[in-house]
């Protein structure tokens, strides 16, 4: 048995969730190889080889892999998949887009978004927006599995010296073309890995009012999240959405402001260690998952919250 993990990277470094997927993959089998497909991606391959849990890096480099397209990656992965019992990647938009394309061609019934490795063929995964947990066993010869990154710790990234070998790619898929990516750059911690997340919902009433949230996020070095309602209303961009169809976050502290707490939103945050809800509707379902609930008008509470935080001089970074 051995595991092939598909790295997510930007040709220079590994994306953080690759390290979480490595932890999960190593729980399936210790013989863990990682496939780095990219263009001028030597540094990403080196970063993969220095992860102590990784036994071997296969690096495929070609200009057709400069931008990630599942149509191009899939045949290259299939070429290298033969000797592996498991193909693994993160269940973020990268892996969700890619893995089913691989699985179908290997005639494998994929297991998506696992939160626990029970044994090499049995996994725990949430269904119905996390309102039920299913224990499932794959009877396929080769298993294609995606990992919910926030359910596994990031693997240590330094000190390993895995061998890097060059691998062959496949022919270019010419019917799909990358056009552009509008990446929202921010100095804040990434939503998926931040220690503190503060999110706003429909109760924020406008995009401009999110500055109340921004000020607190600056103070706490927090990432900014949002409910789908806030994104749909155009208050904030889609990369901030937390929930069943957005991102899943598990911070130490999650502060939900003006969010009623639809089950679809709870699916993305209810595993957070400490949850705070600020909402003027005392009956809002968000209070049912909150450790600390404050029934208040957010436009009064948020400035006070900032003021109180400013009085503390011990805020952890």
């Amino acid at each position: 048995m051995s595991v092939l993990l598909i790295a997510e990277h930007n040709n220079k470094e590994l994306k953080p969730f690759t390290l979480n997927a490595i932890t999960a993959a190593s729980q399936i089998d210790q013989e863990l190889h990682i496939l780095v497909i990219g263009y001028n991606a030597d540094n990403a391959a080196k970063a993969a080889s220095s992860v102590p849990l990784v036994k071997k890096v296969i690096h495929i480099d070609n200009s057709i892999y400069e931008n990630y397209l599942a149509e191009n990656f899939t045949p290259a992965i299939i070429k290298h998949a033969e000797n592996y019992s498991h193909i693994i990647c993160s269940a973020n938009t990268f892996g969700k887009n890619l893995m089913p394309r691989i699985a179908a061609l290997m005639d494998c019934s994929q297991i998506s978004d696992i939160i626990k490795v029970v044994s090499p063929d049995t996994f725990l995964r949430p269904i119905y927006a996390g309102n039920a947990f299913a224990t499932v066993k794959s009877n396929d010869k080769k298993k294609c599995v995606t990992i919910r990154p926030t359910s596994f710790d990031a693997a240590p990234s330094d000190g390993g010296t895995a061998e890097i070998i060059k691998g062959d790619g496949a022919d270019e898929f010419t019917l799909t073309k990358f056009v552009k990516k509008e990446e929202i750059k921010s100095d804040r911690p990434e939503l998926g890995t931040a220690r503190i997340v503060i999110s706003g919902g429909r109760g924020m009433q406008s995009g401009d009012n999110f500055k109340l949230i921004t000020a607190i996020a600056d103070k706490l070095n927090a990432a900014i999240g949002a409910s789908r309602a806030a994104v749909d209303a155009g208050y904030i961009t889609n990369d901030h959405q937390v929930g069943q169809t957005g991102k899943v976050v598990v911070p130490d502290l999650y502060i939900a402001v003006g969010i009623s707490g639809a089950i679809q939103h709870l699916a993305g945050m209810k595993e957070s260690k400490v949850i705070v809800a600020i909402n003027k509707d005392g009956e809002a379902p968000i209070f049912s998952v909150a450790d600390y609930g404050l029934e208040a008008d957010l436009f009064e509470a948020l400035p006070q919250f900032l003021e109180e935080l400013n009085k503390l001089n011990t805020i952890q970074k």
Partner: protein
Amino acid sequence: MKILVAVKRVIDYNVQIRVKEDGSGVVTDNVKMSTNPPDDNAVEEAVKIKEAGKATEVVAITVGEEKAQETVRKALAVGADRGIHVKAEGILEPLAVSKILQKVVEKEKPDLVFMGKQAIDDDCNQTGQMLAALLNWPQATFASKIDVKDKSLEVTREVDEGLETISVNVPAIITCDLRLNEPRYASLPNIMKAKKKPLEQLSATDLGIDTKPRIEQIKVEEPPKRKAGIKVGSVSELVQKLKNEAKVI
């Protein structure tokens, strides 16, 4: 252009899910069912493209038990021209559904296949990508904007980092995000008219597809419950609790 739209019948998104005591699944008896929400967006987009004169026919398809037909009828009531119901019983995995859709695509020869990006019951997010793989077609997943060109589509995709735009030649598979559009409601006259639209019945067996699950569902259980929290009376009390009790700031 001809568009095939796949829809799935799921437990309504507003229903509080209950897990069966014997651990065999979730309670579906006497539970409100409806079309998987992003599948409604897929139907809406296909109908809009037809209304804009860029498509000639919209065909709605579902795979599942007898009652799954309701979702096709709903699609017909908002503008799809005809329907297909592929009968199949029991748990249907995305791999089996994509194989069924592949057979229908080979017969119907659509230029585009639309469906929701994810079903809100099994949360798999696989069927569209699998169908694209089996057909060796382009895939534009998580679409929040679609621009129909002559022989291609420019699709804006919602990805973790923000937005990505790709161009796909037709034929192609598009999986739709909830932000793609605002699905319309069916009017009563259109619901009545939809009953007269053709709905073809097929079965997975006729198409030669074995739908027996490959994945064994060992048990389904309730997630661990959070212990009840408290209400605080003021912002300063909240900050003190976070600092001294929870120790997270």
